[in-house]
């Protein structure tokens, strides 16, 4: 089966439509994950043991089970209890929740990595809990997290093909539909791989930059 360049040019516009959806899903999913992650990280530190435990267990559960199955659940099972989400919304929620549990770990590590001496110095300076968080802890905790978060968002990008299971017309789904129409798999699938590789390689450059910019706090 040889490579057909004419075919490549013919299907390119369709695939680019898919790329747009893929990127949109990644951006929305990342934004949601960043928020969900912070919420989980803070709730797990809650004084209320019951809240901390159940949030912890839920996060572990989501992290320990496949995103694909979760997407099926959100899309096909939730309507039984009256929650009907459009595909893109269901997909964003799935990605956001799943990667939110990863982001929570990043937040946790970032907060834990602020040395104990900083909490103590804040106390010796008589800062309140709120002031300690906003002026001392978070400004030190967040910059080193940025590369790790970015890393997960790139991983999320590569998992967007799962959204095809819930009828989102992202890149992989477009490629499949093209392939099914013309019975040629090699070109569309190779192009999908190439798209992912190109975007990933670009994001590696971005990551390196983020690491240089934020990776290290000088103490």
């Amino acid at each position, binding site marked *: 089966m040889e490579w057909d360049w004419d075919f490549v040019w013919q299907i390119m516009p369709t695939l680019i439509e898919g790329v747009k959806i893929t990127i949109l899903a990644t951006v929305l999913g990342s934004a949601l994950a960043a928020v969900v992650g912070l919420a989980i990280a803070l709730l797990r530190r809650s004084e209320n043991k019951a809240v901390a435990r159940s949030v912890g267990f839920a996060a572990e559960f989501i992290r320990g089970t496949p995103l694909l199955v979760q997407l099926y659940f959100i899309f096909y099972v939730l309507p039984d209890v009256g929650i009907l989400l459009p595909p893109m919304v269901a997909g964003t929620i799935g990605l956001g929740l799943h990667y939110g549990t990863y982001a929570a770990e990043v937040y946790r590590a970032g907060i834990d990595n602020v040395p104990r001496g*900083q909490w*103590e110095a804040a106390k010796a300076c008589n800062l309140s809990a709120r*002031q300690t968080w906003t002026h001392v802890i978070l400004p030190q905790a967040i910059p080193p997290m940025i590369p790790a978060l970015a890393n997960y968002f790139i991983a999320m990008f590569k998992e967007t093909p799962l959204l095809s299971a819930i009828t989102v017309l992202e890149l992989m789904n477009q490629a499949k539909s093209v392939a099914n129409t013309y019975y040629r798999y090699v070109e569309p699938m190779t192009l999908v791989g190439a798209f992912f590789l190109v975007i990933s390689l670009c994001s590696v450059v971005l990551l390196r930059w983020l690491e240089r910019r934020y990776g290290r706090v000088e103490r």
Partner: protein
Amino acid sequence: MPAPIIKIDAISKSFGAFKVLDGLSMQVMPGEKLALIGPSGSGKTTILRILMTLERIDAGHIQIEGEQLYHMERNGQLLPADERHLTKMRQKIGMVFQLFNLFPHKSVLDNVTLAPMLTKGTPRAAAEKRAFELLDMVGMADKAKNMPAQLSGGQKQRVAIARALALSPKIMLFDEVTSALDPELVNEVLNVMRRLAAETDMTMLLVTHEMGFAHDFADRVLFFDGGKIVEEGKPDEIFSHPKQERTQSFLKKIIAAGHRV
């Protein structure tokens, strides 16, 4: 005789199964300069951390200027202190740490102004004016715009002292403030502290392994071992004529290791 500024009454503190302090009592007079010495693990740091409310006590009472530190009097009853009470009490106390604990993301000046501005609502201009005075006193005014990472250890520690002073506490706690410094940098910090001791009537508690400095600095020396005060007295007495055998052997070891008394 004036009332003691710090009154520690039979306090106990355990870490897990290990009892660090067991019914310790002591008093400190206003303006007194106190040195706490003793072998590693004897509980010196723990006492300072308890006074700074970085650790809670298991039993006993502490009064600062006659007011309970870990308890609140409400309708004649002693209740455990809440955060508001602690915040009020902490205004009287400042602490300088062995590892400086400067805020690495803030400039030297911001390190010093942060707490007055946030906790006392001091306007920026006033806070900065006072900060420059303090930085000047510790010889760091010219580095006000630097970040902590650009300072040497001795310089960091001097900034940390200025930061603690900015809140004008009545009591200052110093925990081995020179032991993380290169030998040549030790003196610049000790000089600042000598001056501080001479010029203010602040009450100061100092934990140190620098016996020579403890000698010059302190009005009174407490020798700790195993969470207990084994011996106390004027520096001359303790360093030249220790009565207890444990004090003698400790001082001998320290001297053998090359420290001057």
